């Protein structure tokens, strides 16, 4: 090991002084207050707030997801377990892994669900897939936001398995990216992954091809909260 990660000190070096002094020669430094004011004065006239009603917003989200080749189910909160069973059956899955905070009520009795905690990378590679929730979503780009704590699980569990079934609640779907990022519930220092469709590549003749290293199949259950 080079240094322990808890050794939190700035590494001073000749290069650091060199680079900083070359920057300051290029552009003379200004007062800290003018930096803040300058940033605040940047015009942001793009559309930060959405304008769609709930139903149109959800339709847009669903449409975007389907455009990426993701499967979409709509159901009521009380029907999540039944819909999970339906989605698994359609993909021929009998067993999924789940992060610790996924509620028991979402798990249909007829399928098996394993806690993801103790699994090694090699174990994860052998699983049939993963079931998680998310922390938010963005309709305009069909994007799901994960923040990797107990709810969404560590990053590897939604990456190594080939199938990801994700529960998104209707009230988690924001229209714009600005709204989606602003609504992230946890500290920004928790790792964030955004997912827009199954893994894909455009590297061969610029055509989006589904399925490379991340999950090749993504299904989304869009659930309306119980009144």
């Amino acid at each position, binding site marked *: 090991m080079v240094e322990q990660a808890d050794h939190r000190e700035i590494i001073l070096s000749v290069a650091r002084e060199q680079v900083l002094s070359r920057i300051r020669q290029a552009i003379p430094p200004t007062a800290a207050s003018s930096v803040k004011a300058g940033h605040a004065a940047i015009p942001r006239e793009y559309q930060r707030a959405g304008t769609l009603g709930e139903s149109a917003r959800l339709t847009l989200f669903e449409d975007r997801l389907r455009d990426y080749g993701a499967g979409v189910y709509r159901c009521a909160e009380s029907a999540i377990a039944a819909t999970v069973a339906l989605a698994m059956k359609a993909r021929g899955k009998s067993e999924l892994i789940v992060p610790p905070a996924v509620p028991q009520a979402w798990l249909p009795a007829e399928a098996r669900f394993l806690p993801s905690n103790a699994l090694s990378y090699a174990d994860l590679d052998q699983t049939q897939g993963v079931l998680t929730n998310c922390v938010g979503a963005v309709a305009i780009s069909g994007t799901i936001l994960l923040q990797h704590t107990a709810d969404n699980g560590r990053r590897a569990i939604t990456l190594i398995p080939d199938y990801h079934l994700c529960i998104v609640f209707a009230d988690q779907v924001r229209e714009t990216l600005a709204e989606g990022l602003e609504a992230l519930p946890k500290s920004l220092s928790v790792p*964030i992954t955004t997912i*827009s469709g199954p893994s894909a590549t455009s590297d061969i003749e610029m055509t989006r091809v589904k*399925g490379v290293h991340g999950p090749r199949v993504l299904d989304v259950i869009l659930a309306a909260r119980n009144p």
Partner: protein
Amino acid sequence: MSIRVGKAAQAPPFPAVAKQLVHNSQIRHNVRHATDVIRNKRARVVDEMPDWQQLRDAGHRIKEHTLHHLDRYLLQFEESCTRAGGKVHWAADADEANRIVVGILQANGEHDVIKVKTMTSDEIQLNSALEAAGITPYETDLADLIVQLGEDQPSHIVVPALHRNRMEIRELFLRKMGLETLGEKAEDLAAAARAYLREKFLRVRAAISGANFLIAETGSVCVVESEGNGRMCLSLPQTLITVAGIEKVIPTFQDLEVFLQLLPRSATGERMNPYNSIWTGVTPGDGPQEFHVILIDNGRTSVLADEESRETLDCIRCGACLNVCPVYRQTGGHAYGSIYAGPIGAIVTPQLLGMEHSQSLPYASSLCGACYEVCPVKINIPEVLIHLRNKVVQNGDAPLEERIAMKIAALAMGNSSRLGAAHKLVRIGQRLFENDGQLTGLPGMMANWTATRDLSALPPESFREWWSKRTTGRSS
């Protein structure tokens, strides 16, 4: 200083390579096809955004503001990242950056390292430095893998293997991956890459990434990708090393809402690329527990010092300017002799390297302005190109014939009687070459023009001559 941009300092001039490449019909066909596809996709997803111009304005202004206070934002990033458990290193040039990366890997006893697509590592020739130190780098981005397996050079900023078509890639995979059979569909090729790399993802303990954005406020790093190879490299290994140019810093997390809209729509014509990873230092129980960021200058501060071309550093590497460039679309990326091709490459490469290299690149453009129109952060590439052409001339680096011709032109155009005399001379001289009012087969430097284009002969009477006759006639 050992400033490098891949092998650009040794590359032959643009016209020499371009001349050969335009005769390679396979490459031209591949480049034309791929850029057509991506241009159309981009146009479709940009047109559906009513606020695209406002987003461009914001992106431009954020970049401009950040560069203006670059020292502060870098220090803020260093502080936030360090507080979160990351190690921030600085490198003045390519060699320094490579030494730091090799040093970290050697200290950990690593012999293999997986890599997420990073232009910056190509710029500093990190792979050669790793190999020289006995460390094997594995490129994991599909296009980078194609380039690495084919011992090829990248030809596009976003899709480095764009000059290869499906069948060429299939043959390469069959040969290099030791496969007996392989389908012909793009899906089959992607599946082959998945199988080939999976073992490496699960086994190799160290990774190298680039950065799309460094967030000063939070100390976070953002990597934008499609395949999931990025997520594999960023979250599975024990050790992660991120190499990033100093211009990659942005002030706040909120600023991402601008760039994460501009970048995917401009780069691949998608509303959003499949995956974005944003992480901050180290997170106990999730991902690499040792994390290093190397902030690299390698010529960037010289660009910063030139007020007229500073905006070159605004670039977010989307590649949109390549796809619309009439020059790039004819030659492909290899003519530029640099890992940075196309219009943006023509301004980045000579500036990073210093103007004594790559002097032909500022001329590799018709100045049509298509690049400026599509640039998501509004870099005025044509204006910078003209500024750089001026620098080439000021440095006295223009060809001798051209310098003499320009001196004579300046002399002749300096006053009206000299210009009149010059016109008369040319009218006599042009008789040798005149054909139906067009000049053909001019000698010397002028042959470059007349070999492929028309050049009208001077008319028997100039405007000035006509005018002076006319006024004389009226007053008498």
